């Protein structure tokens, strides 16, 4: 690979790569606003100016003040180049820290802050704002412009998800490029010039495509804020944990930002993964974190209809085991879940084998509108993993389960998860069965018809892996502790098995992952 020198350090690059990209790949950040590794080059912020010290020097004429005489005398200064547009060349020597570059960075920074309202205390970006970071690292001078800044529209609602503040905007056009290049929807553009420039919507349109939150995600300043996260939390209180989106079978990698004081997830952010989601996530995926808190099942319940009441943990296990014992093994249906981790499903398959249950089914959501960008048509994160857990055989659906229940072939059900495409009314045949044991993190149609419902931990509370539609196993770690008394699914299944007198032969996740076709360890 050819190499060039950045501040004396050898950096290898692929032909055609720009200086900023090659540096970014090896973890060196040349200060920038408008450049984004996933977007085209605009080169309009001028923050990434660097000095090419090798080769023939380009010079710009200038008037320099002679301190002794006080006169301005003609001189020259080096012509700087934007690193985002500068193709790396073999043996090129580039400086991003020389005095002349530092002066340029400080000047650009001062220019961008000329009309900035400096309303950091009420700005959601504060704490993760590039203007703040670069002010400290590249400017750190007092404001020289003392006149009233230019006022522009504030709090402009761009759509259901995004609010725009033109005064904070530095016109880097990242949001415009996200709409053009990621969402393929030219809904944003810029109007006016200079300090009157602002981002506008296409006439008659709202910012309402499926990737609107990415405009907020790429915004380096607080100009675009998400209606959902707006004013909810200060980012310096939040901690991040790597997670995987549960929205669909693509399995976009995400950061779950949570506040450890309140044990609450506040937002998701895309986590870079060139093989899966690159730098992006869709709006519905970004909002899947809200599922964590809503409609949780925190106490075991037993009984049906009005007689349903909370029971103790041990009592629920005992009840479930008693009811399962009554069902003939060949007439017991075990329902895997496409929303649960592969490990949970493996544990359930082991229990089904121990009980001798003949029928395996898969409960999954009914799909949503996919696209050819990121969204898969299948809105279940782990259909492939559940099928893998069952040994790769095609699993029967819940609809087939219902017909078999009505035919009398199935007399008891042991189901994992809340997610199913069927509505509550459609699941009516299950209510007639005496034994419907549900292991679930949330309330839903499937737990609603259960005779015993046992709570298990939600996806943000467990370690596990999902297998996406490309067959990639993606492991993730727990973000938050599970509620008191609530165990991960595979542990709850093991407890139920021991109540039934079976030892499933696993103590940890490693044992559950043995024999899976995809390499989970490699995914971590």
């Amino acid at each position, binding site marked *: 690979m050819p190499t060039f020198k950045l501040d004396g350090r050898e950096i290898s690059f692929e032909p055609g790569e720009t200086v900023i990209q090659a540096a970014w790949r090896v973890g060196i950040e040349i200060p920038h606003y408008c450049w984004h590794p996933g977007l085209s080059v605009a080169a309009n912020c001028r923050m990434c100016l660097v000095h090419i010290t090798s080769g023939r020097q380009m010079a710009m004429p200038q008037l320099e003040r002679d301190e002794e005489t006080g006169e301005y005398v003609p001189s020259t200064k080096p012509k700087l180049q934007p690193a985002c547009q500068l193709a790396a060349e073999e043996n090129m020597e580039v400086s991003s820290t020389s005095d002349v570059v530092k002066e340029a960075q400080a000047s650009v920074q001062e220019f961008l802050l000329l009309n900035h309202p400096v*309303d950091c*205390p*009420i700005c959601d970006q504060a704490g993760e704002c590039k203007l703040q970071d670069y002010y400290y690292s590249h400017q750190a001078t007092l404001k020289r412009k003392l006149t*009233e800044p*230019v*006022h*522009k*529209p*504030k*709090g402009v*609602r761009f759509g259901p998800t995004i609010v725009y*503040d033109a005064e904070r905007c530095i016109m880097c056009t990242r949001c415009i490029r996200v709409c053009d290049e990621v969402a393929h929807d030219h809904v944003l553009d810029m109007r006016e010039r200079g300090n*009157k420039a602002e981002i506008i919507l296409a006439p008659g349109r709202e910012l309402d495509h499926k990737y609107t939150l990415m405009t907020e995600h790429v915004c380096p300043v607080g100009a675009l804020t998400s209606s959902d996260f*707006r*004013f*909810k939390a*200060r980012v*310096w*209180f939040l901690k991040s944990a790597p997670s995987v989106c549960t929205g669909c079978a693509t399995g976009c990698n995400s950061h779950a930002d949570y506040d450890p*004081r309140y044990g609450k997830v506040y937002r998701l952010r895309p986590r870079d993964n060139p093989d899966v989601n690159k730098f992006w996530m869709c709006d519905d995926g970004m909002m899947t974190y809200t599922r964590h808190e809503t409609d949780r099942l925190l106490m075991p319940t037993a009984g049906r209809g009005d007689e349903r009441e909370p029971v103790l943990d041990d009592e629920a296990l005992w009840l479930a085991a008693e009811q399962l014992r009554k069902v003939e093994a060949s007439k017991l249906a075990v329902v895997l879940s496409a929303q649960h981790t592969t490990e949970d499903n493996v544990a359930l398959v082991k229990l089904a084998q121990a009980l001798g249950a003949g029928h395996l089914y898969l409960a999954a959501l009914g799909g949503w509108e996919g696209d050819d960008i990121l969204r898969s048509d299948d809105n279940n994160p782990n259909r492939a993993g559940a099928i893998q857990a069952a040994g790769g055989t095609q699993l029967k659906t819940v609809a087939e389960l219902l017909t078999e229940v009505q035919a009398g072939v199935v007399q008891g059900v042991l189901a994992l998860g809340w997610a199913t495409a069927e509505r509550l009314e459609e699941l009516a045949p299950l209510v007639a069965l005496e034994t419907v044991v549900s292991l679930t993190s949330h309330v839903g149609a499937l737990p609603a018809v259960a005779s015993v419902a046992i709570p298990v931990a939600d996806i943000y509370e467990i370690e596990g892996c999902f297998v996406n539609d490309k067959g990639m196993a993606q492991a993730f770690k727990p973000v938050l502790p599970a509620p008191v008394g609530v165990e991960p699914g595979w542990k709850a299944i093991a407890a139920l098995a021991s109540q039934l007198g079976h030892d499933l032969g696993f103590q940890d996740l490693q044992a559950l992952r043995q024999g899976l076709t995809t390499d989970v360890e490699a995914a971590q």
Partner: protein
Amino acid sequence: MPATVKVIKKPRRTIAEQAYVPEVAKGIGFAMGRFFKNTFGPTAKKEIDTVKYPEEKRDYPERFRGIHRLTQRTDGSPRCVACLCCSTACPAQCIYIEAAEYEPDDPRYGYERYPAVFMIDELRCIFCGYCVEACPCDAIRMDTGMHMPPSTSREHFLYDKETLLSIPGKDGTYLTANPRHEPGDPSHPGIDREQGH
């Protein structure tokens, strides 16, 4: 170099001191003199440092940190913009704030937000004054000169937004000494984009 030793003579008691009784009489005499002077004597001549709290109260220093108050704008709304700088600075983590947004037809919309919930646990507070230092809007002050009124219930020490707004400063006003141009005030330059800046 050898150290030079200075010998100090041990003070000797006089015979009068050695006799014990005259000295005891002298001591009792001094104490009784103070007792009668401070109990029955004229106020101006009293030599006593304690005050009869709470009937008598001593003046506090100018910068005494009393219980918090939230300052108001001239229209009675809280100056606080719910930036959470105070709760970030708070070492006791006793400040809980939930931010909300002004309605779109409010002149402050877009410029400011306000606290929907602002709660200070005065029992947990250590009265360090960092919240006052951190506030960019001069919205929280400890210039009330007041102690926490005692109570038998812990809940009474959770001061909510209305309580904090209703406590005046030492000067009796609810405002701050540092006014500034607010959006909506006649003194605010306002949005000049429409005026062809």
